[in-house]
């Protein structure tokens, strides 16, 4: 396969043309380009292309196999959905950034070697940060810089790992790493930063809620899922990831309960859902890896739908906090219903998409007899429904009347949400269509009586818990400390303290030096100054006296 057009190249070139176009032509281009990418990706045969030797390294720019294509398919779909959702936005910078970001993410999943992977990995950071900055307020600027710094640091760690790995093995091929390879842990940490694995996760919940309404759709879909892809490719069966994945799933739902900003709540649910995928990668069985891939696919669709719903509310009301919203279901009923399809999908209600993918990961835990993993992932499931499926829509669309009377979201936003909602339902009803594109053949039936009864009981009784405690669950006008406290609060203070210490010591040294100098100056002054003993003018009388004394002395000496 040599005559294949790389989808990333298509997106980069297409994004470069976008600023030359205006108005309807630009809008048409924004939709045509992702549509062409969908066609390119869905018609791509398995194989490699773009092999070239650069500085003695054998690069494979494009490797298409079952695993990379799962992610490529859904990235292409979400690029079109995201572009449609952003169609009304008159901000070329944002559109170019979004398309370049999607191109970079596709570049990562198609990368056949670690150097190509690293280049696209960094491109992803530098294109995506504009989706945060383009909100154009001081909070977003600061959050964008923090996002950039964390990923720059993660990138350096990844690069260090890649260099060690290449020195150790002599190969730049991107395959599963062996645990005795020198760069193993550095590369793992580099990937974990982008997968938002605690304690390296805080950038996500910090930056995504500050992104533009439309940019957040791309952000929610791409960065963490490319990281899941790289973990699946490089670290399947790494036991540590099972533990970390379960922690992620619980960490995310716990913080989501505390969140007041609706997109921050959803951002914590990204961490939670990626936890299922990471745990699946860690378990490493065929069922678990298929489950992770399937869950990444469905997650991108329902999470984009949730972010689109929340974004539509923010776009129409100008408010983003649970405490400031409420009672708008009458005015944005279609947004509400579409959001709920996403909310029930992420909660894994049958017959929606989350149910057919999440149950696979949980089933993999059962097949491996991992009781704790199974119980804790089920617990996180209940928590997912609690926040994303109940708390957010309840307090945003129902609850107390906030007095807001917004119009329904614009048609392009609703249509984009409609497409995502349709896919959530379609995959839920026809899971075979999703299972058919999994990396390995799937032998799993989500719709067994046991699964359905378990899941419905778990979720609906979690709902009972919600309504029992609903008075305690409303938004609180607070923010929750997370690990970003380290670099947003502690580190500046340590730096500040260190600066003051250096300042103090410097001033002390300078003061001591000045004291010595002052002493020197006064001493010299005392002896040689205007009043100094050595600067005094002596009267001629005393000289005559002294000459007389000396003459007398010499006379005396000669006489003797």
């Amino acid at each position, binding site marked *: 396969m040599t005559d294949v057009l790389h989808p990333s190249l298509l997106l980069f070139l297409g994004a470069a043309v976008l600023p030359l176009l205006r108005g309807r032509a630009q809008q048409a281009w924004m939709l045509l380009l992702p549509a062409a990418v969908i066609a390119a990706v869905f018609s791509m045969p398995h194989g490699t292309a773009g092999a070239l030797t650069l500085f003695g390294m054998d690069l494979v720019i494009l490797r298409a196999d079952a695993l990379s294509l799962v992610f490529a398919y859904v990235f292409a779909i979400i690029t079109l959905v995201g572009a449609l959702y952003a169609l009304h936005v008159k901000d070329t910078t944002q559109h170019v950034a979004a398309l370049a970001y999607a191109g970079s993410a596709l570049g990562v999943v198609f990368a056949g070697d670690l150097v190509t992977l690293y280049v696209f990995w960094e491109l992803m950071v530098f294109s995506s940060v504009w989706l945060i900055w383009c909100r154009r307020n001081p909070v977003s600027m600061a959050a964008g810089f923090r996002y950039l710094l964390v990923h720059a640091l993660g990138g350096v760690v990844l690069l260090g790992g890649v260099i060690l790995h290449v020195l150790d093995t002599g190969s730049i091929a991107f395959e599963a790493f062996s645990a005795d390879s020198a760069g193993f842990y550095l590369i793992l940490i580099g990937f974990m930063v982008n997968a938002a694995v605690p304690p390296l996760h805080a950038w996500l919940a910090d930056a995504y809620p500050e992104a533009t309404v439309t940019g957040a759709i791309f952000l929610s879909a791409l960065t963490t899922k490319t990281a899941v892809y790289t973990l699946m490719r490089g670290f399947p069966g790494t036991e540590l990831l099972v533990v970390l994945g379960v922690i992620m799933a619980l960490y995310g*739902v*716990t*913080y989501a*309960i*505390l969140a007041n900003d609706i997109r921050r709540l959803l951002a914590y649910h990204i961490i939670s859902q990626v936890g299922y995928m990471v745990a699946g990668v860690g378990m490493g069985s065929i069922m678990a890896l298929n489950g992770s891939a399937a869950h990444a696919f469905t997650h991108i669709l329902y999470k984009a739908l949730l972010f689109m719903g929340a974004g539509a509310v923010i776009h129409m009301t100008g408010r983003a906090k649970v405490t400031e919203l409420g009672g708008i*279901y*009458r*005015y944005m*009923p*279609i947004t*509400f*219903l579409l959001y709920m399809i996403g909310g029930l999908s992420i909660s894994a209600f049958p017959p929606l998409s989350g149910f057919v993918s999440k149950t696979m990961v949980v089933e993999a835990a*059962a*097949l491996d*007899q991992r*009781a704790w993993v*199974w*119980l804790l992932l*089920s*617990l996180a*499931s*209940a*928590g997912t429904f*609690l926040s994303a499926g109940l708390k957010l829509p309840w307090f945003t669309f*129902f609850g107390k009347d906030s007095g807001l009377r917004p119009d329904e979201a614009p048609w392009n936003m609703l249509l984009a949400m409609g497409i995502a909602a349709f896919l959530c339902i379609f995959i839920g009803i026809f899971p075979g269509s999703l299972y058919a594109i999994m990396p390995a053949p799937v032998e799993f039936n989500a719709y*067994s*009586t*046991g699964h359905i*009864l*378990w*899941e*419905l*009981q*778990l*979720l*609906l*009784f*979690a*709902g*009972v*818990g*919600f309504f*029992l*405690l609903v008075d*305690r*669950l409303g938004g*609180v*006008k*607070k*923010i*929750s*400390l*997370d690990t970003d406290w380290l670099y*947003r*609060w502690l580190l*500046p203070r340590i730096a500040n303290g260190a600066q003051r210490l250096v300042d103090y010591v410097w001033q002390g040294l300078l003061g001591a030096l000045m004291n010595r100098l002052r002493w020197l100056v006064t001493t010299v002054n005392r002896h040689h100054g205007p009043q100094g003993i050595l600067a005094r003018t002596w009267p001629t009388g005393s000289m005559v006296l002294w000459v007389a004394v000396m003459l007398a002395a010499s006379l005396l000496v000669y006489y003797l």
Partner: protein
Amino acid sequence: MDVGKWLEYLVDHARILRWIAYVLLASLVVADLLIPSTYDRFPWESWGGFGALYGLFSCVLLILVAKGLGYLLLYRGEDFYDD
């Protein structure tokens, strides 16, 4: 079709919806008690109604733990990071 009106109608009849929900919840547990379990990887998979219990327990536990952490440790004023 006015979707907003239709939703408003449902909200106005929330009492009936609530009773439907109660019946649904009860019949779900009854069904789980009656239908023999198809899975036995873990002992609790064959306990009828365990899912309901675990769902309620999970929800309450998460709320207690999260809110406890929030009020004891994590909550700060919204201007905490604005120096």
